[in-house]
């Protein structure tokens, strides 16, 4: 069991390092509190955003934390790829250029899997292949409007 855990951990850690570097131009890695007994240990996300000293999640800014957490989620997904992904406003904490980098990454991945992404941010909408508009019609019912891009 410990063997299986380490195999998953090492793969997810490698993914995390690649993805974090792509999204934030810094370095990041996963760290176990107690590598001797992994099945009891805690897992920390340690990152060092561009040009800054290494930090743990707690001392980062709102946007830095969310970019780190997103990289972790994507690292897990790459370990067990799936034919479709759905994201609900994962870009809300990010500044304009981080949203663009995230949208670019999703666009690249969309060549291999289907991505359904709920977003209110302009760079994400502009990077997509198409937009489905949703609105509240009479009597509070949801109406779906197709949009051709």
């Amino acid at each position, binding site marked *: 069991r410990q063997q299986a855990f380490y195999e998953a951990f090492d793969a997810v850690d490698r993914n995390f390092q690649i993805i974090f570097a792509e999204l934030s131009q810094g370095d990041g890695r996963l760290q176990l509190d107690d590598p001797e007994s992994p099945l009891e*240990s805690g897992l920390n996300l340690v990152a060092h955003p561009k040009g800054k000293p290494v930090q743990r*999640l707690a001392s980062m800014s709102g946007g830095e934390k969310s970019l780190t957490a997103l990289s972790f989620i994507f690292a897990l997904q790459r370990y067990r790829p799936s034919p479709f992904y759905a994201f609900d406003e994962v870009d809300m904490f990010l500044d304009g250029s981080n949203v663009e980098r995230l949208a670019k990454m999703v666009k690249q991945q969309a060549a291999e899997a289907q991505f359904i992404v709920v*977003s*209110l941010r302009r760079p994400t909408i502009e990077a997509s*292949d198409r937009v489905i508009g949703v609105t509240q019609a009479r009597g509070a019912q949801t109406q779906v409007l197709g949009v051709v891009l």
Partner: protein
Amino acid sequence: MYIKQVEITNFKSFGGTTRVPLLPGFTVVSGPNGSGKSNILDALLFALGLSSSKGMRADRLPDLVNQSQMGKGQGKGKRSTVEAAVTVTFDLSEEAALLATVSAEAAEDLPGLRDADGQPLSEWTVTRKLRVTQQGTYTSNYYIGGEPCTLSELHQSLSKLRIYPEGYNVVLQGDVTSIISMNPRERRQIVDELA
């Protein structure tokens, strides 16, 4: 393989039947606050049995039925049960082309993937129906290609398509914040589950 359509009937803010057509690649869903964007993802989780009612922001399953339907049940002897249903249609034309070269016995197919003559279909549908009586009791049933099945049969088939309940392929509103605020042990358990 990709999701070709989600058909939503009387589920949350969707009254009547709404078809949401989908294509492969990168699709954005956008619209004003409260218009029903997250409810489309909830419909997907509901039909594929990937989430509890709490994960769909409802206290109990019957809260998922469209409110304006609930009112109808109390009319003069009108239908006493109301029903919400979601059908997800997957496009498997790529896989079907592959399957055509292998006989039915040799391949460990998905249920509902071949027609009566054993030819591979290019579509696969999953449906979930929730019926709520006036007293508030309810039944919830899953169907693959129109045939009833259990949740664990559905999960078995979905994992052949590489869709796993703990796979993190659906990231809900607020999931990013909860990863940030969970403690290190909980984070390690996520990797544990994948192993």
